């Protein structure tokens, strides 16, 4: 009975832990990509001569 519950717990734990780790990794990747895209857009704006938008201005 105890062993049986151990397998049940292990199955649910693998599922939720796997999902949690996957979402954490995905969130880190989205954050990194978003930061890079913002940085490059600013550099493009600078290269165009318009410069980055002033702080507080609507984007």
């Amino acid at each position: 009975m105890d062993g049986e519950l151990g397998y049940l717990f292990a199955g649910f734990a693998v599922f939720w832990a796997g999902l949690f780790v996957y979402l954490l990794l995905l969130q880190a990747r989205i954050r990194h990509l978003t930061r890079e895209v913002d940085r490059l857009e600013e550099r493009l704006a600078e290269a165009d001569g318009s410069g980055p938008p002033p702080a507080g201005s609507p984007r």
Partner: protein
Amino acid sequence: MNLARRVYALRWVALPPLTGAGVLAMLVGAVVAAPRELVEGDVQRLMYIHVPSAQAMYLAFGVVFVASVMVLWKRDMRWDAAARGAATVGVLFTGFALVTGMLWGKPTWGVYWQWDARLTSTLVLFLVYTAYLLARAVSDPSDEQAARYSAVYAIVGFLDVPLIVMSVRWWRTLHPQPIVARLDPQLPDSMLAVLGISTLAIFLLAAWLILLRTDTERLGQRLLGLRADVDRREEA
């Protein structure tokens, strides 16, 4: 804006709460509401994760198949992002189906693994699409030729899916025959209801993850385009 676009625009508003509610219902159903199976005992409750994970695996690789066909047909890299996004989710759910199946198999069959047709063909699917993801990871995401070769590979790899589905009918396997996908489902109504709720919840979860991952892949493609633009401007 047509209806499909309006529905698609609502994905980040509708999917997370729907998925959360579905997953909560799945947990309560699987652990509390579903009756204890008489022969296998409580470990049979793994069915409410194992079976929907396998269904989500078919869904995700079905999306990979369709998106890969569209890559070859339309030559549009947005479909490549969808194929890669769905492939990661497919590999994730294949891993869940394999591991939960092994943990269910040990107390019921006496072994974690058996090289029978269903288990082996599912492992092959896992390896085929892991190789696909590795190949895409080392190639440039905006490389159209790599996308086309990968699309052909993904389409050929999908041939394993009907083999998995039919394996329990064509060969003698340790894995049981279908008990739900038939005209007279061999499950009590209470178990069938919980399995239905679990399948719906996992499908919502898989759909949300596929969309999230696809958007991430598109963001990666946009980043490469921006890098190329910045390099061109700064060289000029």
